[in-house]
Structures are given as structure tokens and as C-alpha cells.
């Protein structure tokens, strides 16, 4: 006698197994998607940090010590730097660019470059808007929490010591699960003029 279909038990077991497999697969795929997103965000953040730091360094490298402010030797730091770069020489005298500034807009996480700020011919360009409020592992408590000899430094910190400018930058992004991802980079530039 030919038996058609499954018994109820067979069907339940089969459905349970299928459900198990689908659930596992979904978890694996979700894990893969999440890992992909995390890695992508981290990679993009690192890439952006490196490019930004280079951009700042190349902007500042042509400055003169006499036209660089504020002078903030450690443990003080500043979230902005004002400078003028040399454009060449005319009649034996150096010619300087219009005043430039690179800074962090308070509260917005925006890193901007500006020229002639406050004047009629003002130019401001936002270079990034993912700058962390404070440098990585730093808290606003008057102490050096992250062991870099600076106290309460913001997400973009300049330390000017004679012709050297130490630039520290922390970028951050928030993942889908709400976790913050931070990348910190640091470089030192010696002003050539």
C-alpha cells in the first residue's frame, strides 16, 4: 500500500529543521553584513583621518614661525591654528598669503579651513564633519586622561612649539548599533619658513 505525504511528526521535525537552518543562515548573514559595515566604517574613518592630517600638514608646512599662532606649548593646546604661508619674494622681500585658519567648530564636529575670516572676502571650507568633541580617551576634567601630556584637548588639537606644530586628530562615527567608533592620528610638521 502506497503512503502519500508525511506523518505529522515528520512534518513538524522537517519544519523545525528548516527553521533552524534558516535562523542560522540569517544569523551568519547578519554577522557578515555587520562585520562588513564595521570594517567599512573603520577603514573609511582611518582613510579620512590620514587624508585630513596630510591636508592640514601640507597647509601649515609653508608657514612662518613668526606668522603662526597661538603659541601653545604642551600641556596647553588649541583647537585652531592661524597662519600665513610664503608666496614668494618681491623686491627682495617675502610676500605672505592672506591670513588662514584651520580649526574645529565648537559642538558641530566640523573641521574647517578659512581665509580672511571676519573680512569681506572671507572664505570658509568645511573639510570634515566627523571630528570627535574630545580627543580619544580624553575627558573634560582638567587632567591628562590619555597620557599624551595634554589636558582637556579637543578632537582637533594643535601644539605649537617654536617651528614645530604637533597635530592630533580624532574622528568618530556611530555604528548602527549605537556604538561609537573612533580613530586617532597624530603628526608633527616643521614650518619651513
Amino acid at each position: 500500500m502506497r503512503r502519500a505525504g508525511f506523518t505529522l511528526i515528520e512534518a513538524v521535525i522537517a519544519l523545525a529543521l528548516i527553521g533552524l537552518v534558516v535562523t542560522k543562515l540569517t544569523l551568519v548573514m547578519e554577522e557578515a553584513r555587520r562585520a562588513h559595515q564595521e570594517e567599512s566604517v573603520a577603514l573609511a574613518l582611518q582613510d579620512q583621518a590620514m587624508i585630513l592630517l596630510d591636508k592640514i600638514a601640507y597647509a601649515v608646512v609653508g608657514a612662518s614661525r613668526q606668522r603662526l599662532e597661538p603659541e601653545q606649548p604642551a600641556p596647553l593646546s588649541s583647537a585652531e591654528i592661524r597662519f600665513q604661508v610664503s608666496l614668494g619674494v618681491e623686491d627682495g622681500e617675502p610676500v605672505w598669503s592672506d591670513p588662514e585658519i584651520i580649526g574645529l567648530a565648537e559642538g558641530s564636529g566640523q573641521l574647517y579651513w578659512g581665509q580672511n575670516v571676519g573680512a569681506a572676502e572671507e572664505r570658509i571650507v568645511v573639510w570634515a564633519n566627523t571630528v570627535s568633541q574630545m580627543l580619544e580617551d580624553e575627558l573634560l576634567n582638567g587632567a591628562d586622561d590619555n597620557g599624551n601630556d595634554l589636558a582637556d584637548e579637543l578632537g582637533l588639537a594643535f601644539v605649537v612649539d617654536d617651528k614645530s606644530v604637533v597635530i592630533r586628530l580624532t574622528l568618530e562615527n556611530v555604528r548602527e548599533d549605537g556604538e561609537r567608533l573612533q580613530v586617532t592620528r597624530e603628526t608633527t610638521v616643521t614650518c619651513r619658513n
Partner: protein
Amino acid sequence: MKTRNGNGERRDAGRRGSALVLSLIAVATVVVLSASFSQFASAVADRQAQAIDKKQAFYLAEAGLTEAFAGFTCGKSGIVGGPEAPALLGDGLFWVEATELMPGIFRLDSTGMIGSGRARLSLVAQRGIDGIAALGVFSGGDVMLKAGSVVDAYDSTLGAYAGQADKSGAALGSNGAITVVGTQLKPTSIQGDVTPGSEETVQVMGSVTITGSSTPALTTTELPEVIVPPVTMGAAQTHASPYPLIVPPGKVGYESLTVAAGAEVVIHGPAQVVLGSLTLAASAQLTFDTSQGPVRLYVQESVDLAAGSVMTTSSTNPAEVMFQVPAATEQPVALRSGGPFHGVIYAPETTLLLGAGFESFGAVVAQAMTFEGAARLHFDRNLAALAAEDVLPVMLSWRLDELGSLPGSNPFDQLGVVKGSLAKPSLAHADQTLSIDYYDALDAYHQYVGLESEFDWSVVKTVIFATRDGVEVLFPRATSTKTGTRKSPGVLPIVDGPMI
């Protein structure tokens, strides 16, 4: 999944392959995610590689500037290689072009290329100058020192002249003949070298002491022109008030400045003061206050400091005051004032008339010099040390002109050059005509004129004098300072031919 029942019949065919489909969906999803991630990672890696190439190109261009500047320091043109034959450094290349912007001021443009990176930097440099103050007391024409003259030296860094025992190291030079006169009652003393022009001699009459050499100079000394800074000239000033007239720091100019008897003018440094003419009446006073910075005074037409007037300085450091007369004047520049004056007096185109009451601490250099009485000239040996630093070129400006990348490019293919055929940086400097007088290891005097590429520098022990393309090479002196003019070796040179 294929199964059969006990009778060998196939079960429900519609359920076959369902697990495979699910597996394929899962694998496809993972593959798509992996592919997109690796594409993203590859784009990031490319960007980072370009950033590294740019950075390396930047440092290559900077290496080019350094190489050119080092050559510039030794009197070379600053040209290193070119786009058709750049210098090879590591896996990259660079070349430097030089452009003369104005006399003595050059712009060096350095281009560095490696991988996809390309950077161009420029630097403006001013050639060093052979500090005229190191000449000591020098005249372009004949010099005659009268009886009772004292030409000696001291070191201003050790304190005042009067307190120093060592008065050696003076230099009295001329492009013409030098005559020194002394008497028993008024002997003349020169504590150092006396150097007449290359074809001239020193004539000594009476009681004269010369502690150094009297051999003639190797070559005629050219006195460099004075560059007067651009200054807005104010109206003529005549100052007769009992209160001092203060000339403030900065760039100041007057058509003329006349100081009446009993009046005083004080020039506060740091200042560059340009005057049409300068006149001090008897008992008038001109003071250089250098407590805040040096003073450079340029007088263009006439100078008349009457006997009984005073020209004095607040500091005993002669390097802080420079009194220059840039052009020829109708009448000799009359310096009959009293002092003490600590400074450098330079008049390359005109004659100085030094009064009997004039005493100088520092250096005096002029086209010609006439003494109304016994000369009292005290050379500051520190000026020679400072002049050694002036020989070095000075950087006026550094600029980043271009920084970019061209993905997939190769600098060697781009320029059409073969990597193996390129010279290393030190050999890529532009060839020049070298004229050099030197001593070899055996202290034999040699002369060579020809291409520098055909000259073997290893045979040189000491350079006496050298030019590249007719421009004097000012070698930095790390350990010793030069005072006075270059003396002739006194023998005929061995003339070298090409050595390489």
C-alpha cells in the same frame, strides 16, 4: 533530496534541492558582501598608496632643494639635473631649476616624482655676501698714513678696547700703494697685515712698526655696491633745539638732516635711515641708540661732520651700526667729528676724509681715504667672525607649489628616461667654468681654469680664490675667519690642465 520507498518509487519530487537553494542564497550573499568589501578596501588601499606616493614625492622635491641649496652655498648655480636628465634618488627622481629674480636673489624650483606622486617646491635664496667689514681698514686707492697713526685690533665680545692687551689682528689693505710714515716722536704702529694692491708695494718711512705681512694682494678687491632700501623721503630737517630730535625705529628718510651747534639727534634702532645729506655743525651731536636694535644709515649725497662735532654710539658693538655712503659725492665725505664711534663705515664709490679727531672702533672701507692727521683705527676682530656667517646664503621663502598624483603613471616612462642612466644627486649639478687658485697637499700653488667636471677636487688642500662662471665663490669658513684682502702666494702658479 532523492529517496525511494520500499517499492523503489520516488518520493515527492517537488521537495528536491530546497537545501541547495538556501545554501546558494547564503553563499551568494556572503560573496556579494565580500566582493563589495574588497572593492572598497582596494579603493582605500589605492588612495593610501597615492597618499604615500605624494608624500614621497614631497620629500624627493625637498631633497632636491637641499641638494641645490648645498651647491648654492658653495657658489654653484643651484641647477641640479633637468626633466631630460633628472637626478636619481632611490626609486624616484628630481630636478631643480634656478632663476635669478634680481641680483643675488635666486628662485630654486624643485620637482620630485615617484610612483604616481609628483611634487613641486620652490625656495628663494639670497647669495651670501663677502662681508666688507672683514676687510678691516681698506681703500680702493692709494693710502698714506701719517706719523703717529695707530691701526690695531681688539675683540668687542671681550669688552672695551682700552681694557684689552691683545691688539693684534688688524688689517690695512688697498688696491693701490700704501705709504706708512712715522717719526721718532710720533711712531706709527700697525698691529697686523698691510696688504697693497696686487701690483703695488708698501713704502715705509721713518719709525714704523708693522707686526704682520706686507706682501701684496692676490687680486684686486671689488667693493660691492650698497643697495639702498626703498624709503619715503620726508622734508629736509634742520634741528637747532636744545632738546634732542628723536628719529624713531623703522624705515625713515629725510631729504637732508642738519644739526646745528649744540643740538643733538638720536637715531633709535632698529632703523634704516636714508638721508640726502648729513651735516653736523661744531658741537652738534649725532647718537646711534642701538639698545633695541641695529641702525643702518645711508647718506646719498654729502656728509660733513665738522671738527668739534660728535658722532657716537650707545653700544660698543660695531656690528650694530653701519654708516654707508652708496654713491659718489661731489666733495669727500668729511668725518672730522669726535667719538667714540663703534661701527662700520662703508663708502665704496667715494673718498673719505678722516679728521685728526676722528677715531673709529670697527671697520672703515672706502673707495679712497685721506687722513688729515694721525689715524686711529681699531678693527674689531668679531666683525671678521660675523662676516664668515654672511658668506652663507639666506633662505627668504619656501613654498609648496604643487602636490598631486597621476594613478598608474611611472615617472621614468613619463619623462622618457632610463633609470639606470641617471646620475646620483651630487653628480647632477650643472657644469660650470671653474677658475681656481689653490694649494695642493704639498703646499704647491696651482691655478686651474676650465670646466668643473674636468677638475679633480681631491688634489685641493686649500682654496685661495675661486670663481664659477665668473662669480666669486664664497666658501663657508667653519673653523677660521678671513681678515683683510687675499694675499698673493708670491710665486708663479703651476697651471693645471684637465684632470678628469
